[in-house]
């Protein structure tokens, strides 16, 4: 049971990632798609951060008497990933605005109707 509790966060992370993928691919509203994309990215970031964690470990700054430090590398990687996700979200929002300008709607089905 204790073991299971220690692994609980992985379950939550994968729930987030799957939720994000489901929303991105199957929701019809473009804004909802973008929100789902962000949820999924947060899931991936949590996954990396939880890899770096060690019990009773300190931040990776040299401290006298410290036994363990958390791994700083995944944190550094995720800083970059956050920037990347910011840029992608920006592009997605710009595209969404352009779609709204051209079709007057943000619902995928409605736009597909218009195209026919």
């Amino acid at each position: 049971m204790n073991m299971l509790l220690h692994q609980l966060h992985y379950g939550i992370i994968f729930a987030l990632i799957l939720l994000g993928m489901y929303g991105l691919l199957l929701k019809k509203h473009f804004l909802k798609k973008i929100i789902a994309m962000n949820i999924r990215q947060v899931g991936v970031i949590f996954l990396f951060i939880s890899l770096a964690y060690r019990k009773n470990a300190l931040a990776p700054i040299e401290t006298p008497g410290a036994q363990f430090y958390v791994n700083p590398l995944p944190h550094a990687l995720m800083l970059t990933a956050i920037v990347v996700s910011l840029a992608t979200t920006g592009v997605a929002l710009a595209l969404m605005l352009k779609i709204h300008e051209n079709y007057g709607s943000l619902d995928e089905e409605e736009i597909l109707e218009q195209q026919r």
Partner: protein
Amino acid sequence: MKHGIEQLVPLAILLSFIGGMANALVFHRTKKSVGVQFISWVCLLLSLTVNISMWRYLGHHKPLEYFFGGWPAPWGITFYVDRFAVAFCTLVSTLSLLSWTYSFHKQPALHRSLFFILQMSLYGMILTQDFFNFYVFLEVCSICLYGLLSDPNEPRSYLSVFRYLAVNTVAASLYLIGLAFVYSQCGSLNMSDLVSLIDLEDLPNKIGIGLMVVGFSIKTALFPLHFWLIDTYGNSKAQNTGFIASIVTKVFCIFLLRIFYSMLGHGEEALKLLSYLGILAWVSIALAPLLASKQKDLRKILAYSSISQIGYIIVGLAEGSSLGLYAAILQIFHHAVVKLTLFFVADEMNSQWGSYDVLHMANLPKHSKLITLACCMALLSLIGIPPLPGFFVKWMLIQSAMTQGHWVVIAIIAIGAMTSLLYTLRMIEIMFFPHTPWTESSSSKPHWNVYAPIAVALVLLMLQVGLLNQLLSWSQLTRYQP
């Protein structure tokens, strides 16, 4: 440090970046700025020179390694250059020079800037040894693609680019999750480090590499995951799509090649994973040409044909033999040049007769003999007519399949050749035996910047068979022994 030649390694990236920034600075100006054009040309020509000189140097020297900030392998990001990698860099810089010559005067300044940044990310993806660094370049590449593929005059392109973005971010995050598995197990992100650390018998490693492979099969548009490619290529300007279709999806194939041939070696598990990919590629080879033959838009025909041609690369990799590897590499070069030529033809058609309808090809022979010749050669090479490189790809694939007893591969290649006859012969028929009377072209004869890149691409296509010898010399590189 003795020669200082390894300082050339990141130079191509730096030059493309300078070109991109120079073009971004003048985006608000409507009139042409000569200085920036000059800088762009210099950057393109210099990066081609750098790559060719590295190619010559590596002919009789050891591969180079470049440490960013002087940090060696497990700590810092490293670039690794052997003849193999630099050949692909030369391909990128040649194609970008051709594509720039063709389209620089029609592009808005921001698209020009994106074109340079795209080039930078391609060099980065080919050279980098660090998995996370690859991810960053991949995202830079994707963002450039979103910009280049959306065409303000075609509102549908925004929809297709949005769909592309959705699929692409899913693929990228699958790659990232796979990376998390591999990192948690091996504790390193450096490819040359992982060679000794990774063991595919371990379940997390297997899951990690498997997720990466699924991500890449989306990115390279293998069959059930190909739908994004048709819409995005079919709705955007052919002048941009030419460069993108010819090189971007191939860079992911090159990375797969690196993962499987240089990092995982000849392990049984790795080959099993690759053979699953191969099965997807069989479907693409056999089915995509059938779908291509039903399309009316030339861009969509070319998009379906890209899917089937990338299938050949993956089948070559999945063979797991050195002949299969040669076939895959030759196919990368062959398809890049062929697709660039055909997209130039499509763009020329659009600018002369106003649409990408394949029936406009009937006007080509009277319009320009050179373009018709290049188009025919490219199409014949796609089918695999003997003196052209497309034939050698299929020949080597069939040879390799025969020695290993992969009879399905032979059957699939035969079916693929048959079905690709459907769309290539249809195009040739339209060109030489038109059903509709010839319509006068709206504008005059094409300029030099249409002729020159098509002529150079034609010459490159003809000379590619000479690559076979180079491929044999690459086989002596220990890192890519299959």
